[in-house]
């Protein structure tokens, strides 16, 4: 499956919108009966790319065209929020971090004292708001710090009515710069990425 380009790095990744539709029945007598519609909430991120040159803009645009502006799902790692968390050698591995995630979401793990999980991606089970366990892992070694990043095994790009709006042109024209005109083609644009089950 395609992987969202790690480079160029967005200038800003906004905290996600949370999507969690519910089934609600409003009674005539003022109370309502409510149930969630899905197994867990989903997230939607907005990535700001500011002052990006033509080459990098084309990298992102080419990728979005390859995934047909949302028809094809892809993998996505959060490009900027690299968390530092405490990993405990329990089975499954327990991670202490004020994470803001729910059971069923995925993370990527690196630089931990447990060599078996470094570089892996794991679905989590939320235990408290400040801890979660990594499904299918076995505790090895000692307690220690490591990095956690948000990972989406299935994400899609969100566009309005199937149209990718044109980037805002700061400086044109749209071409790869040729020396000595190295500042040709600078753009601002946004990409919206939505988590899928």
């Amino acid at each position, binding site marked *: 499956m395609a992987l969202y380009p790690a480079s160029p790095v967005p200038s800003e990744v906004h905290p996600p919108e949370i999507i969690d539709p519910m089934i609600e029945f409003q009674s005539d007598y003022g*109370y*309502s*009966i*409510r*149930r*969630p*519609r*899905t*197994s867990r909430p989903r997230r939607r991120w907005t990535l700001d790319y500011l002052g990006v040159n033509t080459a990098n803009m084309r990298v992102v645009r080419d990728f979005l065209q390859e995934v047909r502006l949302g028809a094809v799902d892809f993998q996505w790692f959060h490009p900027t929020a690299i968390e530092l968390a405490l990993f405990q050698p329990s089975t499954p591995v327990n991670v202490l971090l004020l994470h803001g995630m729910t059971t*069923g979401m995925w993370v990527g793990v690196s630089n931990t004292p447990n060599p078996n999980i470094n570089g892996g991606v794991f679905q989590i089970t939320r235990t408290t708001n400040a801890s979660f366990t990594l499904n299918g892992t076995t505790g090895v070694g000692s307690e220690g710090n490591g990095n956690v990043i948000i990972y989406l095994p299935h994400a899609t790009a969100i566009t309005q009515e199937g149209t990718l709006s044109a980037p805002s042109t700061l400086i044109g024209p749209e071409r790869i710069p040729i020396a000595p005109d190295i500042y040709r083609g600078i753009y601002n644009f946004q990409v919206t990425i939505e988590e899928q*089950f």
Partner: protein
Amino acid sequence: MPLSLSTAMIVEKNRLTSDHNWCWVFEVQIAGAPGPLRLAMFDQPIVFHGQTFVPAGLQVDSLEDATHAALVNLRVTIQTVDQVMMALYENYWVTTQSPDWRVLQWQVDTAMPNEMPYGNANVYSVQQTVTDLMSAVVELVLEGITLTSIIPKQRYVATNGFANLPRR
């Protein structure tokens, strides 16, 4: 047999607000086909009495639970007709003179699906199905006393709270 809910399900059903999902799962039994098709109207697979029901794009359009003697009709839209569905249509519907497709349906709590007994299915027979090869609409009618059958094949009807008072 009236639909009996376990204590845990009754407690959950009566909650005004809850974080449990309730969804429908279907088992399609086709005469002559190698095995049943198990589908869940949910975003995750549901293991129900040891069998995995896979997520499927299904939509229930029309649920008519008549209060008189008429049978319940259900219209289910299959949002994507994949190769599995297409093969079933080709081999067991259009090429069969009188296709015998039965659909078992349960409402389960996804946090504790096995609280719903397997034997408590609503049993439907497929009356008609049409497809444009992209999506399909399946017309279901609840099994029961019909003109061609005097003895109910399987009971299915939810209880009205009075076990000895027949509903239909």
